[in-house]
């Protein structure tokens, strides 16, 4: 690939995790510029104009989210979502491990834009070593004078802290994450109020994904138009696609929105193992609907809107490739077990529904492919939809419903 990277810049500049190397490649200049020359509102406007949308799954416009922050209540907080627990997603980890300063500079820019003097990076507990590494990098930034009190001779101050989770997918949901930082069980809050009004410690809070934040230094350095020129009209810029499953070369690929599934899977991912055909694609990890692959699907240009026309969501762009050796009852057995394990138990439809789905799919898998069992499973999944307190419950039904409906032959053995 000829294009140089914007996020995975360590692939072009291997030592970019060293402070002096990051600095000599323009590091912290964007943060310095915004703090010394721009008003917070101007930073928000620039991010709005860039078209940047949140990379944590929902694709919500980042600048718009920031503009919801309540300026009547103080202090404000920024929380970086580094929980990365969606099966099939492993991009934030690579960014933090290999290009940590750009991520942290992004946290700093977001903090300035919303007037936060403290930011927390919430990492899943398994990222123990990443957290230790980030702590070192944060300390180096303090020594270099880009974090701490009175930055660049202004009255703006900022501290960044890491907070480790302890193994709970639900803590990736932003309100559960806030509960977790507050020292409680990580269960979602009822919304509204949204975090922009009532967030961490009940104060206005912006939660953004690691990849979202890592875009910011480049956008502020190169301008909104530069960024908007990449990608598609619907989805500006570049995305890190985590490609996994039955491909020859799984891994992270940073590509502009508008790249087709075919390009991702065949040009970058080396095609399917043993040259088999692609049977199904899960574009958003285990929370995905299945897309039944055909030529038209493979030639679809991936952005948030286009993937929706295929009856799925792009989500965090964790593309799991399934080939024709795999049966969908086996796949949904895996996804149901995942969600059964991760349901926080706060609301009944999700707690009981995932439990019931698990028993049904185990029966089906063990040879009970009776239409009764399959119909009941489909029914339970549909009953859960629109009834759960947070999206996890809904997520747990996506693969079940689309698996049974789009691959009926796999359930009639």
């Amino acid at each position, binding site marked *: 690939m000829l294009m140089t990277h914007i996020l995975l810049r360590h692939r072009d500049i291997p030592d970019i995790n060293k402070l002096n190397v990051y600095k000599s490649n323009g590091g912290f200049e964007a943060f310095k510029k915004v703090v010394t020359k721009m008003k917070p509102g101007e930073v928000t406007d620039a991010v709005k104009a860039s078209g940047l949308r949140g990379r944590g799954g929902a694709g919500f416009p980042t600048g718009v989210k920031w503009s919801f922050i309540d300026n009547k209540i103080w202090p404000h907080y920024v929380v970086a979502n580094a929980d990365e627990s969606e099966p099939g*997603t492993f991009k934030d980890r690579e960014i933090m491990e290999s290009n940590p300063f750009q991520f942290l500079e992004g946290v700093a820019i977001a903090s300035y834009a919303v007037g936060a003097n403290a930011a927390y990076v919430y990492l899943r507990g398994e990222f*123990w070593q990443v957290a230790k590494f980030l702590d070192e990098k944060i300390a180096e930034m303090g020594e270099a004078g880009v974090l701490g009190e009175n930055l660049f001779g202004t009255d703006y101050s900022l501290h960044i802290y890491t907070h480790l989770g302890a193994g709970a997918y639900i803590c990736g949901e932003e309100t559960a994450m806030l509960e977790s930082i507050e020292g409680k069980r990580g269960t979602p809050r009822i919304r509204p109020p949204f975090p922009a009004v009532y967030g961490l410690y009940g104060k206005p809070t912006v939660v953004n994904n690691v990849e979202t934040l890592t875009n910011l230094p480049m956008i502020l350095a190169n301008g909104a138009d530069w960024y908007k020129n990449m990608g598609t009209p619907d989805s500006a810029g570049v995305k890190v696609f985590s490609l996994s499953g039955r491909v020859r070369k799984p891994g992270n690929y940073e590509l502009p929105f508008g790249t087709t599934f075919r390009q991702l899977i065949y040009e970058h991912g080396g095609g399917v193992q043993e040259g088999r055909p692609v049977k199904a694609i899960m574009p958003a990890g285990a929370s995905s609907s299945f897309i039944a692959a055909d030529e038209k699907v493979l030639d679809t240009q991936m952005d948030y809107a286009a993937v929706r026309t295929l009856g799925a969501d792009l989500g965090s762009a964790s593309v799991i490739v399934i080939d024709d050796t795999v049966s969908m009852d086996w796949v949904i057995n895996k996804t149901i077990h*995942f969600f059964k394990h991760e349901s926080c138990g706060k609301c009944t439809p999700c707690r009981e529904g995932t439990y019931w789905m698990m028993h049904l799919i185990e029966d089906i898998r063990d040879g009970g492919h009776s239409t009764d069992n399959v119909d009941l499973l489909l029914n339970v999944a549909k009953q859960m939809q629109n009834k759960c307190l947070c999206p996890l419950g809904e997520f747990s039904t996506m693969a079940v419903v689309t698996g049974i409906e789009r691959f009926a032959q796999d359930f009639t053995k």
Partner: protein
Amino acid sequence: MSLAEKYPKEVKQILAKYPPEHKRSAVMPLLYLAQREDGYITKEAMQDIADALEISVTDVGSVVGFYTLYHDKKEGKYRMQVCTDLPCALRGADQFMESLCSNLGIKVGETTADGLVTLEAVTCLAACDRAPMFQIQSGDGLKYYEDMNVDKTMELIEALRKAESNS
């Protein structure tokens, strides 16, 4: 001995991360600290943390119960947590787990007779492109092992066993 007596520097650093009026936030990092020595958290440690943060021991216990990386029982010194989630399973994680079980002579969830290794199946660890993979959790933290195979894994366990008998 309380955590603050045992690890004064760490406790201070942890508390400094959060606003003083919200010191309950320190419960998770303090639990990790309490787990450091023996790989699990005792009732006394929970009480100690509850006292330090001025919350009830029930609150502390409910946090321990909610998160999978906290343990209130002694198990193997090393918890080998193999990812068998969908993306890894599409790359042979289930077969890998089966061979580990037969090589170690234990089932998933069990501990080797010498108390060295507890074998666990876990959900996605954000390393799906490097399956088969697992993490090892010990009191001292977590470490990833990626692109593994059974031979490499058995060698690793042997090395842990040797280190153990030398210490």
